[in-house]
């Protein structure tokens, strides 16, 4: 079965996020009001063949720990869509 994977990596609490800050400032300079707590992160998407959602999840978790996120500075969230449930 093929799953659609989306991984969102964001800076851990307390870790500087210069990009997020700059986006916040830039939006301010452009005249946007009421923007708070801007955070910038990375996004990784792919398709994964796995027998079931659990297997998919556990191997995606390993990918994140091993490569995609750096636990020292980042946290990650995983979203798994199986073809059926898949929809925009």
């Amino acid at each position, binding site marked *: 079965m093929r799953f659609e994977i989306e991984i969102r990596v964001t800076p851990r609490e*307390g870790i*500087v996020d210069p990009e997020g800050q*700059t986006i916040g400032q830039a939006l301010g300079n452009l005249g946007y009001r009421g923007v708070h707590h801007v955070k910038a992160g990375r996004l990784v998407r792919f398709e994964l063949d796995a027998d079931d959602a659990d297997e998919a999840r556990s191997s995606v978790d390993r990918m994140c720990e091993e490569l*995609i996120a750096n636990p*020292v500075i980042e946290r990650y969230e995983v979203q798994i869509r199986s073809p059926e449930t898949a929809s925009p």
Partner: protein
Amino acid sequence: MRIGVVRFPGSNCDQDCHRAVDEGIGAEAVYLWHKSHDLEGCRAILLPGGFSYGDHLRAGAIARFSPIMREVIAFARDGGPVLGICNGFQILCEAGLLPGALVRNDSLRFRSHPVRVQVEQTDTPFSSEYEEGDVLRMPIAHGEGQYVADQSVIEALEIERRVIFRYVDELGQPTEEANPNGSVRNIAGICDEGRRIVGLMPHPERVVSKLLGTDGLGVFHSLIESLQATGGTATHAAEAPATHTAEAAEAGAS
């Protein structure tokens, strides 16, 4: 005695490091290809700057899994001296051999200019030839050089005197203006608990000649001195880092 310069496909300071070793201090330098499993009997390892694997994802994130890095990590565990410069420093952090991480410069811009760094500790294989307090002029050239780590880690680094190089101004003060990338406490270079593994962002290998400046020579002279001193068998140094890197390796991979 042989010194290994690791060559990742995207390394671009490898030739400079090689030159610093053979022309700079007249020692033998060999390239170690990233796909190789053999350190070819090198007595010390240099991880040069560059963009190892394009620095996609995070600088150094992918490099740490290359075959040669397995050997380098084992070598470091046994107390072998390892120096990571710029991208090399980033790789050492990603590999968990050094604590913390290097994130995008606070300016969000690549920064390239000469900086001043102060030598704070001279009991490592890469700083022993300097005097404590020496202020060196070296270029930096990086986009991800902002050193960050948890408060507890920073405290430990300071207490254990593991900050080896710090960005300072012409008066030797670690001021904000002297800090090119927003690194915590102006940290430019650190070492591991065993004091055999050193990483720094500035480029000593670019200032090892009469023509371009000589402030970086000490880093390489220190290495030769310490290798001659230890006669190669890193005795007690062996255990300390062994335990350390063991847990660090977990930390890195968990």
